[in-house]
């Protein structure tokens, strides 16, 4: 009998890989908790068909997830904060529009945390919270 064939898979094969969509959903839930329900967030997912004029070698549709902030007190005004896309057949690599591309779950979380903590994002968040508090104050 021949020697047993070794397991050739690398150590990095992981059963706990989380998709970008799941990570984004967690951020949506976290935002609601952090802002004490002043702000909500939801994820809109759509499919973007490949456009030959953009990339003639790209025939795989893309999945886009849009993280939107929703403001209940402002008649559910919504703000599209981030767009994330990846090929429909592969969750990684994943691109955060305007921020770059991440090859793995860890890289994505690192890039996403930079995007969420950016001065622009904070400015939007605080502006919407301020407008909400103003509206709540007016209604009293």
């Amino acid at each position, binding site marked *: 009998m021949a020697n047993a064939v070794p397991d050739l898979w690398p150590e990095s094969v992981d059963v706990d890989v989380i998709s970008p969509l799941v990570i984004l959903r967690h951020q949506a839930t976290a935002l609601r908790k952090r802002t004490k329900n002043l702000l909500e967030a939801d994820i*809109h997912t*759509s499919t*973007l*068909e490949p*456009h*030959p*004029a*953009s*990339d003639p070698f790209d025939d795989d549709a893309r999945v*886009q997830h849009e993280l939107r902030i929703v403001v209940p007190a*402002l*008649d*559910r*005004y*919504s*703000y*599209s*904060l*981030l*767009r994330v896309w990846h090929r429909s057949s592969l969750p990684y690599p994943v691109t955060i*529009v*305007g921020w770059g591309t991440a090859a793995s779950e860890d890289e994505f979380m690192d890039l996403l945390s930079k995007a969420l903590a950016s001065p*622009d994002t904070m400015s*939007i968040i605080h*502006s*919407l919270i301020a*407008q909400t508090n103003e509206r709540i104050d007016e209604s009293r």
Partner: protein
Amino acid sequence: MTFLFWNIAKRDLWSTLDRLCNFHNVDLVVLAESPSGATSSAKQLTQIGTRSWHSHFRVPTRTQVLSCTSRATIEPVYDERAGMLSIHRVVLENTDFLLATTHLPSQRYWEEGELAQESNRMSSAVRQSEIEYGHERTVVVGDFNMDPYAPGMVSSHGFHALMTRQLAGKRSRIVAGTDYSVFYNPMWGFFGDRTPGPAGSYFYRRSTPTTYFWHIFDQVLIRPDLLSVFSEVQIIDHDGTQSLIDEHGYPDNAVASDHLPLLFRLDL
């Protein structure tokens, strides 16, 4: 209700805007490439003229919506980080509609395929607002940086904007098993010199073999549910006092903007 859209190319054209608004009795102005923030734009227009203008926004965006009418309340309902699309809800006594305003990137920086992909995303965002508000009384206006015949404007994956009222009257079209709502794009009718007025809203001369010279980047799209009240659209070449075009009939960049304004009316 009378609307004016104008890409003012970062110029202080407040006097010209005031004359335009007075001459055409404009109720609502949408600006692209304003040199100042929306609050300041409204203030400057108010100070220079006789009407009181108000801005409507929650966050800074690429287009600004200003109004001087008390007939309607105007509420921002959607914005996005890149600011290329904003949606407002306009509420009148007996009806309401959605006003989507847009300013897409120039083709100096974005390729046609990229604009088409962005049109896909934007039309989905418009559709999402229509679902949330339960109707399709929607107008989209702005500087699309695409001509009416561009794939992003025409494709069912993009704005799906068709060239005649009759075609748009069918309301939607099934493509590969999916039903896509349509817009009417009246801007097709302005091409060439067989109709009064300028042959486009933007003039660009190139030395390449294929050059169109005139473009209609500044467009208004109307959903079928508003066709019965959509009464007029013009590409404007004067402000009632001063011409906005030069001796060749091209947008006069020296006195105004490299884009001509767009005027349209909804009989609401």
